[in-house]
Every structure is written in structure tokens, then in C-alpha cells.
């Protein structure tokens, strides 16, 4: 098994993560063997369309998958220690302290009946700090995210703007001094200018704290601006993973290249019509073989349906899960 990794000292290692959803039609394999590596101080983008399982994967990292979905398998190791073993107790203990999560909708993520300051102090106090310490740290972090002063500390969540709420949420996530920050579409609900300033803040905080960030988004442009590496997810699996430049220069998986073709280039010529991928993302039930993208793939071959596609190494840290990539590289160990 050759691991397609440049850095073997990964901080967060996710192997074969599986989340199934019980539906009337059967077990839906929402996250179907997801594997990821994030190094210390690295920003990994997890990109995919709606329903590809990226948010469920994020929740699974904290053992927060809501029923009827449940985490049915996988290894989630932080610093080499598997947190997923033992019914997820270690994952719950790591919540907020070692792995923090920022949601998309900041308005819904703040408790409406608690003042912003109170919520931060509470979050800090859960980490074991005394109330005075917690308050001092909450103030310092609010200051750091650009929300200094008593006005925000004593404000109700509904009195803040969308950008302010997202900043407050970011401050809250950092209170426990986590090593890994999972950001689930943290800027999707914001307008473009606010989005840019929140992203800039996120990048600053990431650099200054050496945070490992799993940045989940459906927006390739945002991912490109922030992430060193990007993993493209389709139907619960990573189909291609590459350094950002390498992916944009030459995506090898048909889905990844189709996704790239679908996003409007900012500096390129204006397209008459934005291309789209025909068909809809599949819902995979029960044991299924073959490439999940095959039904929508323009270059699908017979063996795409007959067997699971191999995980093909294409470069130092570039790999794709596709038979078409086989000619270029050599088949590596199949991850999950």
C-alpha cells in the first residue's frame, strides 16, 4: 500500500469513514469510505456539490451525526490516536477542545437568549477555565476577530450583522485552542464582500495559530483562495485529491474536471453559457460496485460499472479514483 502523501506526519487522519442513513428505501451510504489527511498548519478544502455527504462527514468527525444517520465505521485519528474507537467517547471529549467546528449559518448557531459575551464565556468555561479567565479570554478573542469593545460583548445575537456573527462564531470555536478547525461552508450565507473579509480573517488566524483546517465548501473559487490542497468529493467518497494549483492545472477525474468547467473563470473570457453536468448525484444504497459517477460520465467504460475504480497516484500528492487515470500513473493502494 503506497500512501499518496507527501507528509506522513499528518495531524488529522480520517480513514474509511462511513455514515449511513436509514431511509424507507434502505441504508443510504451518505459517506462511503472517506479518507483524508491534514497536516499541522495545513488547509485542506473538501469540495463537492450539495448532498455529496460533506456536511455529514464534518459532523461525523465530532460524533454529532443526527439520527436517522449514524457513523458506522472509520478511523479518526488525531496525532496518531484513534478517537473513533470506543463508541466515540474520545471524539466527544475532543469536541471544542481539540477539534472545533464552525457552521454555515451563524445566525442559527448562536443561542438567541444568551448575550454574545455570555456564550463565549460559557464556551471557554466548559474548557475548564475559571469564570474570570474565561471572560478575559472571550474578550481577547473577540478583540482579535475585530469585535472588540463592550458593545458586541453585551449584544444579543440578533443585534449583530451576519459577518459579525460569523466572526463571533469563529472566536467561539477558537476558545478551546483546538488543533483542528472544521469549517462547514462558513461564508456561504454571507454576501461577497463580507465573505472576503471573513475568509481573510480565517486565513490570518490559521497562520498565526498553526491551525489545521478542513474547509468544506461547494465553491471552488473560495477553496482555491484558501486551501493548499483540495479534495473533491462525490457520492460520499474523495474522487480526486491534489495540491490546489495541480487540480486547477489538470484535474484527472472526469467529475473534478467537469466541476472545474462549471465554475466561471474570474479573469478568463466571458462564457456564453456556463456548462453543467448532466444527470443528478446518485443515492447509493446497500452494497454497490462500480464508479458512482459512471452514469453521468462522458467517458464511462464497461469496467467502470463492473468494478470499483482504483485510487491512482498521479504525482507527489495528486491522486484520482478513476480507471482513466491509470495510464498516467500506477495504481496505488485503494483507500477505503
Amino acid at each position, binding site marked *: 500500500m503506497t500512501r499518496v502523501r507527501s507528509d506522513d506526519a499528518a495531524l488529522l487522519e480520517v480513514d474509511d469513514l462511513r455514515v449511513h442513513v436509514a431511509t424507507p428505501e434502505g441504508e443510504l451510504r451518505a459517506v462511503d469510505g472517506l479518507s483524508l489527511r491534514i497536516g499541522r498548519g495545513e488547509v485542506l478544502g473538501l469540495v463537492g456539490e450539495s448532498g455529496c455527504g460533506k456536511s455529514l462527514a464534518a459532523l461525523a468527525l*465530532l460524533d*454529532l451525526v*443526527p439520527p436517522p444517520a449514524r457513523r458506522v465505521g472509520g478511523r479518526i485519528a488525531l496525532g496518531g490516536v484513534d478517537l473513533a474507537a470506543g463508541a466515540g467517547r474520545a471524539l*466527544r471529549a475532543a*469536541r*471544542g*477542545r481539540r477539534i*472545533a*467546528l464552525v*457552521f454555515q*449559518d451563524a445566525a*442559527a*448557531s*448562536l*443561542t*438567541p*437568549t*444568551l*448575550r454574545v459575551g*455570555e456564550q463565549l464565556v*460559557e*464556551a471557554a468555561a*466548559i*474548557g475548564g477555565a475559571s469564570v474570570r479567565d474565561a471572560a478575559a479570554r472571550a474578550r481577547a478573542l473577540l478583540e482579535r476577530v475585530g469585535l472588540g469593545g463592550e458593545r458586541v460583548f453585551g449584544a*444579543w445575537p*440578533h443585534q449583530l450583522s451576519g459577518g459579525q456573527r460569523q466572526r463571533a*462564531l469563529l472566536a*467561539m*470555536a477558537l*476558545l*478551546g485552542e483546538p488543533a483542528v478547525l472544521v469549517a462547514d461552508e462558513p461564508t456561504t450565507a454571507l454576501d461577497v464582500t463580507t465573505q472576503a473579509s471573513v475568509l481573510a480573517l480565517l486565513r490570518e488566524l490559521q497562520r498565526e495559530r498553526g491551525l489545521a483546517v478542513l474547509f468544506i465548501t461547494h465553491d471552488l473559487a473560495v477553496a482555491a483562495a484558501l486551501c493548499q490542497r483540495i479534495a473533491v468529493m462525490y457520492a460520499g467518497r474523495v474522487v480526486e485529491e491534489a495540491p490546489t494549483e495541480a487540480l486547477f492545472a489538470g484535474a484527472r477525474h472526469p467529475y473534478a474536471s467537469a466541476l472545474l468547467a462549471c465554475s466561471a473563470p474570474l479573469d478568463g473570457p466571458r462564457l456564453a453559457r456556463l456548462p453543467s453536468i448532466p444527470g443528478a448525484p446518485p443515492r447509493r444504497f446497500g452494497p454497490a460496485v462500480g464508479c458512482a459517477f459512471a452514469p453521468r460520465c462522458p467517458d464511462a467504460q464497461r469496467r467502470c460499472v463492473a468494478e470499483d475504480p482504483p485510487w491512482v497516484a498521479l504525482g507527489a500528492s495528486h491522486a484520482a479514483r478513476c480507471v482513466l487515470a491509470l495510464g498516467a500513473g500506477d495504481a496505488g493502494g485503494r483507500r477505503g
Partner: protein
Amino acid sequence: MSIAAPAVGGLARLRRDPSALAGAALLAAVAAACTLGPLLLGLDPETTAPAARHTPPGAAHWFGTDALGRDLLARVLVGGRTSLAVGLAATAVSVAIGTLYGAIAGYYAGRVDELMMRIVDFLYGVPYMFLVILVMLLFSDTARGEPLPVFVALGLVQWLTMARIVRGQVLALREREFVLAARVAGASDARILLRHLLPNALGPIVVYGTLTVPGVILLESFLSFLGLGVSLSWGQLVADGVAVVNPVRSPWWLLAFPSGFLAATLLALNFVGDALRDAFDPRAVG
């Protein structure tokens, strides 16, 4: 802190609400009159005066007298003590049990919720008067006519609706993202329930709680009518007043004063309840 915080801003808003102010003032006046009035005026509700029976309101007896010549003002005020105490105490019992029960059922959901709410459904199916009588009989004969069994009995009957309301609120709130966010921060179940969920359900709890007070006061008067209540209360006085009303020469004051006090108090409670609901909801600041 969480509950106190909205109330601080809320009190300022409460002061700008004329109907709430009037309601609160009226409640305070009634409560003060009931607790201090009989002492200050030197009146006794049980002193009979056969010669002065059915005296209309006047200088000697401001509210008139009843069939035994007892001073009605004294009886209304002392009866008010019982009614208010029964209303508040039984509501407190019902809010405490109902909130805790409903919150646990709603928070844990699934089978826990299923079982807990079926118990509530079952108790709903039992005629409440039967339950009340059962509880009253559990107390010894010596305690009959005392307020305590009535508090307990009414509280035990009233919590069912409160449990359903709180359960529904918590069930809806637990799906909200801020609960997930609190869990991400590492908050325990108890903390999530007490700090994040219940304060958000406070509006309905307060509103239904204030509606419970008049409901309980009325229920107590019904019990009094059956001879199971407390011996002297507004409900009892109204029942007595109704009994003597006739078209020819009616001692109208026997009905008018107790029911007037009862109605005014219930109305004031509703005003205050409405204002409290607004005050506890920080989103209502505008």
C-alpha cells in the same frame, strides 16, 4: 444569568407598557389588601351578628353582610388570601413538575419521550376531578379544609398541559443549530437543557403559567362548591352569593364583590402574563 439577563432589559420595557403596569398595580393592591386589610381594619370574617344579617353595603359594613351577619369585606379579603395562595402555589407545583418532565421528554426524544408522554396521555384520560378527590383523600381527615392538600392536588392535575407545552417547545428547539453548536463546544446535556433550551421556551412557560393561576383559582372554587376545597375562598363566596340571588329582593353584594375581585384579579394576571412574555423575549426589542 441567562434568565436574569433578558429580564433586566425586559423590566424597562415592562415599565413602558400601561396595561402591564395597571395589571401589576392592581395585583399588588389586591395582594396587599388581602394580607394586611383585615388586620388594619380590625375585621374578623367569622364573627356573626344575627341582627345585622343581609345588611346592604354602607358605612358600618362597606361590602354589606351575609346571611349570618358576617362582614363581607373581611370575608372577601381573607378569602382572597386563600385563592391567591392556592393559585400561586398550585401553579408553582405545576410549572416545576411540568417543565422538568416535558423538558426531559422533549430533549431525549425517541422512546423516552414516547413512554413519558403516554403516561401523560393516560393521566389526561382520567377525569381530573377523580384524581383531585383521590389526592385529597390521601390526606388525613384532619387536613381536610386546609390549603395544603388543595395545592398538591391541583398542582398534580395542572402539570400535564405544561409538560406537553414544554415538551413540544424543547422537541422543536433541540433540532436548532445552536444546540448543535453548544454540543460542539462541549456542553453537557444538563447545560444545554438549562442554558440553551429552557430560556428559549420561557415565553410559553410564562404565558401558560400565568394562565394557570386563574385556572387553578377557578378550579379551587369548584372544589369548594363540592365541599372539597378550602373553607373560605373567593370561589366559595361566589358559590354562596349565587345561591342567594333571587329576582325579588336580592342581596346582590354577596355575588358582586367576590366575583368582582375574582374577575379583576384574573384580568390583571392576564395583562401581566402578556407583558412578561414580551419582556422575556429579547427578539421583541425591535
